[in-house]
C-alpha cells in the first residue's frame, strides 16, 4: 500500500521535478543560516526576562554589552567599553566607551549618532531607576532584581560623552560577572526618545535597535524571526548576510529538519537518535556547561512546607535511572545545586540516596501516609532537561512505590511560567543554567527571598539564615571565606531540601558541517557573531 502511495508521489515529484538538481544553491540559501529554535521569544529585550529561548534569540545577536566574558581565557574582555578601572575601593567602576560604534539602521529607525555615554546611562537606568520614563514600559526586570544588581548599583553617572561611572552601594565581587551577562545590554537612547515622542514606547522591545552583529527584520510568531547582518558592525562580524530563526518546538521535528537540511543548526538535539541516523554531513558538538535541573517543592503550600515531606520525596526518586533514560548518560548526577566544576562546590555529606524504605518512613513521621501531588513538567527542552514530561513519568512511578500519587501538569511554555509565578504548582521540574562564572549565580537568582517575589525562586522558599549566608558570601572577595560560606549554604540547603537537584547536563548542539563559527558559550545564549557557511562544493570534499 505504501508502495502505491509512493507511485503517486513519484508522479508528483516528477511534476515538481528538478528538486534534486546538483546545481549550486541559489544565492539566498548560500549566504544565510537557519537556526531552528525551540520556541517563541517573549520579547526582543533580554533585560525583561530570564528565559533561555529569548536570550538565545536576542542577546548576542542584537546587542552588545560593556564587557564580555571570555570563557577560554577565563577573564573579562573589552566590548563596548574599551577599558575600565576600579575606583573608591571597589565601589566605583569607570568605563571608557569605544568610539565609532554604530546602531542598527532599519526601516523603522535611522540613527543620527554613534554610541555615547547617554545610551549606557539610559540602558542601565531603564531597570535601575524607577523614575526613568521607560522603567514601567515592559514591567519587571527579573534578572536584575534576582541578582540584586538593582540594589547594588547606586547610580550611573555620565562623566563625559564617552566615559561613564557606575557607583555601587558596597563592594561586590560578582559585579563584573553580572555585567558581562546577556542581560546587561546597551539600548539606543535616541531611539527611545523618538518612540516617546511618537507615543509608542513599548515598541522599543518589539522592534529592537541595538549595536549587535545582526539587525532585526521581521518576526512572525510560531514561524520565524528574520535578522540580517549589521553592515557597520564595530568588530569582526558574521560571514553570512541573513540569519533566520525557524521556530520549531517539537524536538523530533527539529531533528528531522536538520536531516533534510531545512535547519543548519539545532539546539537540544535528540543525541541518541541522531547517532542512530548516522548522517555524514551532520555533526554534534557539546560543551560542559554549568547548569542544573531540579525538582522544586512549592514550600508555601501544604504539605511541602514540611522539610520532612520534602526529604521523603527526595529519597523516593531514582535519579540514576533518570540519568540513564532521560539523558542517555550524557549528564552527571547532581548532589548539590552547584555543578562540580564550580570552585565553591562541596558535596561532602550532602548526598541523597535512592531509598524508598526511608522515604516511606519519613512520610509516616510527617503524618502523611498517602499524598496526592502534582508534578509540573516543562513543555520545552532545556540544556538541563531534554524531556521534563518523560522525567515526570519516571518519577510518577517512583512515587507510586511510596504511596504518593502524582499527576503530571503541563501547559504551553509562556502560560506554564505565568502560572508557576503565581505559585499554582505543588512541585515543578525545572532548572537553571548559569549566566556567569560566579557561584552566586546559582544561589541568589534561585533561592533567595528576593527571588520569591520575582518568580525565579520556584520553591517559593524564603529562609533568612540562608539569605544571610548568601549576602555575606558576596560581601567578601576572599575566595576561602566565600567557599566556607557557600559550603554552609549547601549544607543548609541539604537539610531544608526546598528542591532536589537532579542532574548537571552536557549541552549539545547539532549542525551541518558546512557551518562554522557558531559558538556555544558556557555561560549564556548561543552566539552567531562569527557564523559562516562554506559553499556546497567544499563541503563535499
Amino acid at each position: 500500500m505504501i508502495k502505491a502511495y509512493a507511485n503517486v508521489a513519484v508522479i508528483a515529484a516528477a511534476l515538481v521535478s528538478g528538486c534534486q538538481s546538483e546545481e549550486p544553491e541559489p544565492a539566498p540559501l548560500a549566504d544565510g543560516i537557519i537556526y531552528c529554535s525551540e520556541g517563541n521569544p517573549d520579547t526582543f529585550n533580554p533585560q525583561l526576562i530570564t528565559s533561555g529561548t529569548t536570550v538565545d534569540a536576542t542577546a548576542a545577536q542584537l546587542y552588545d554589552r560593556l564587557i564580555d566574558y571570555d570563557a577560554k581565557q577565563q577573564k573579562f574582555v573589552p566590548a563596548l567599553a574599551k577599558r575600565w578601572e576600579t575606583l573608591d575601593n571597589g565601589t566605583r567602576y569607570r568605563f571608557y566607551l569605544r568610539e565609532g560604534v554604530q546602531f542598527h539602521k532599519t526601516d523603522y529607525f535611522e540613527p543620527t549618532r554613534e554610541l555615547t555615554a547617554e545610551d549606557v546611562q539610559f540602558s542601565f537606568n531603564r531597570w535601575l531607576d524607577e523614575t526613568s520614563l521607560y522603567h514601567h514600559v515592559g514591567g519587571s526586570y527579573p534578572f536584575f532584581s534576582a541578582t540584586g544588581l538593582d540594589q547594588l548599583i547606586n547610580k550611573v553617572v555620565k562623566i563625559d560623552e564617552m566615559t561613564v561611572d557606575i557607583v555601587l552601594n558596597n563592594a561586590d565581587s560578582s559585579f563584573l560577572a553580572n555585567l558581562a551577562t546577556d542581560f546587561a545590554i546597551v539600548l539606543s537612547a535616541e531611539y527611545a526618545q523618538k518612540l516617546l515622542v511618537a507615543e509608542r514606547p513599548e515598541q522599543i522591545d518589539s522592534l529592537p535597535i541595538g549595536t549587535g552583529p545582526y539587525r532585526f527584520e521581521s518576526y512572525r510568531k510560531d514561524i520565524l524571526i528574520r535578522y540580517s547582518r549589521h553592515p557597520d558592525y564595530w568588530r569582526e562580524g558574521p560571514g553570512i548576510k541573513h540569519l533566520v530563526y525557524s521556530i520549531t518546538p517539537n524536538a523530533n521535528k527539529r531533528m528531522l529538519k536538520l536531516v533534510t537540511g531545512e535547519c543548519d543548526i539545532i539546539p537540544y538535539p535528540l543525541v541518541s537518535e541522531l547517532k542512530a541516523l548516522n548522517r555524514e554531513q551532520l555533526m554534534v558538538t557539546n560543551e560542559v556547561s554549568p547548569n542544573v535541573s531540579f525538582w522544586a517543592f512549592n514550600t508555601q503550600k501544604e504539605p511541602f512546607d514540611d522539610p520532612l515531606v520534602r526529604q521523603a520525596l527526595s529519597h523516593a526518586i531514582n535519579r540514576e535511572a533518570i540519568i540513564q533514560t532521560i539523558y542517555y548518560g550524557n549528564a552527571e548526577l547532581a548532589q548539590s545545586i552547584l555543578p562540580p566544576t564550580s570552585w565553591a562546590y562541596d558535596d561532602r555529606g550532602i548526598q541523597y540516596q535512592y531509598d524508598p524504605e526511608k522515604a516511606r518512613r519519613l512520610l509516616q513521621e510527617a503524618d502523611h501516609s498517602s499524598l496526592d501531588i502534582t508534578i509540573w513538567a516543562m513543555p520545552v527542552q532545556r540544556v538541563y532537561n531534554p524531556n521534563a514530561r518523560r522525567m515526570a513519568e519516571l518519577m510518577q512511578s517512583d512515587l507510586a512505590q511510596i504511596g504518593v500519587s502524582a499527576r503530571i501538569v503541563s501547559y504551553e511554555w509562556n502560560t506554564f511560567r505565568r502560572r508557576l509565578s503565581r505559585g499554582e504548582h505543588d512541585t515543578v521540574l525545572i532548572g537553571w543554567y548559569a549566566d556567569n562564572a560566579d557561584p552566586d549565580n546559582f544561589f541568589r537568582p534561585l533561592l533567595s527571598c528576593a527571588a520569591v517575589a520575582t518568580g525565579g525562586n520556584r520553591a517559593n522558599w524564603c529562609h533568612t539564615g540562608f539569605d544571610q549566608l548568601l549576602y555575606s558570601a558576596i560581601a567578601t572577595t576572599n575566595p576561602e571565606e566565600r567557599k566556607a560560606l557557600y559550603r554552609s549554604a549547601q549544607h543548609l540547603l541539604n537539610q531544608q531540601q526546598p528542591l532536589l537537584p537532579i542532574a548537571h547536563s552536557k549541552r549539545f548542539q547539532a549542525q551541518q558541517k558546512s557551518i562554522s563559527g557558531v559558538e556555544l558559550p558556557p555561560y549564556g545564549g548561543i552566539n552567531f557573531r562569527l557564523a559562516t557557511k562554506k559553499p556546497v562544493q567544499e563541503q563535499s570534499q
Partner: protein
Amino acid sequence: MPQINLYHHDETPSPLQLVWKSYRARFLSMAALYVLLAMILVVILSPLLAPFNTSAQFSDAIALPPSWVESGNMKYLFGTDDLGRDMLSRLLIGGLYSLGLPILMVAVSSLIGMSIGALAGIDRTIKYQSLSRLFDTLLSIPSFLMALIIIAILGTGFNNVAFAITLSLIPQFIFVTRNAVHEEWHKDYVTASRLNGCSKAYLLYRVILPNVTPTLVMQLTVSLSVAIMDIAALSFLGLGIQAPTPEWGSMLARSLDEVYLSPWSMVLPGVTLFITIMAINIVGDSLRRALKERVNS
C-alpha cells in the same frame, strides 16, 4: 421426535434478519466482524491479559525490540519502550481508552441522539419543518471541530475529552435517526398502521424501529470509527488523553522522539489503530451494501 406443525407457518424474517443474511454471505464482511469482536473481547479482558502493569518500568529492558527480532526477549512479546515499559501491556490497556472508551461514548451519544431524533422524526409540526433545513446546515460542522471547541472551553483532561467527543457525536445521531424515521413515516405500511389507530409509541417501536434498525446500526459503526479517530487525533495533538496513559494516539505521538532507536514503538500503535478502524469501516460498508441489497430485492 419430529415436531408437528399444525399450521402452515411462513417464516417472515425481520428486516434485520434479512440484512444479516446477506451480510453473512460475504467472507470479508464476516472476517472484519470477527476481528472487531475479537478486539472488543480482548479489550474487555485486557486487565487480565496484560502481563505487566502499564507503568512498570524495567530498567534492565529499555527499548527492547519485539520478541521476533533477534535481540528481542520472549518475556516482552512486543518489546518495550524507551522507559522500559512492556509494549504489549500498554497496547492492551491502551485499547480501553482507544476502543473501549469510544464504544462507551458512542453508546451514550447514540442513546441520547436517537431518542431525540426519533421524537423529532414523528413530531412533524410545521414549525419544525421549516427549521429542519437549518439544523441540517448547522450539522455539517465536523465533530472534531466541535470537540475542539468544547475542549477549548473546558480544558483538557480525561473527563473533558470524553465529554467533548460524546457531545460532538450526538448531532449526527439525531440527524440520521430523524431522517430515517421521517422517511419511513410516509410509507404506506406506516400509514396503514396509523389508520388502524395504533398509538405513536406503538408505531415507533413496533412498526418503524425494526425497519430503521439496520440504518442505525450503520450509523453506529460510522460514529464509532469517527470517535476512535477523534480521540486518537486529539491525543496525538496533545489535547486528548495525556501521557503516561497508554492511549494509542498519545503513544504514537511520544514514540516520534525515538523512531530510529525503537521504530516498533511507532509502528505497533499505528498498526493497531489502523486495523481497528479498518475492521469497523468494513463492517459499516458491508452493512450498507447488505442494506441496499435488501431494498433492491
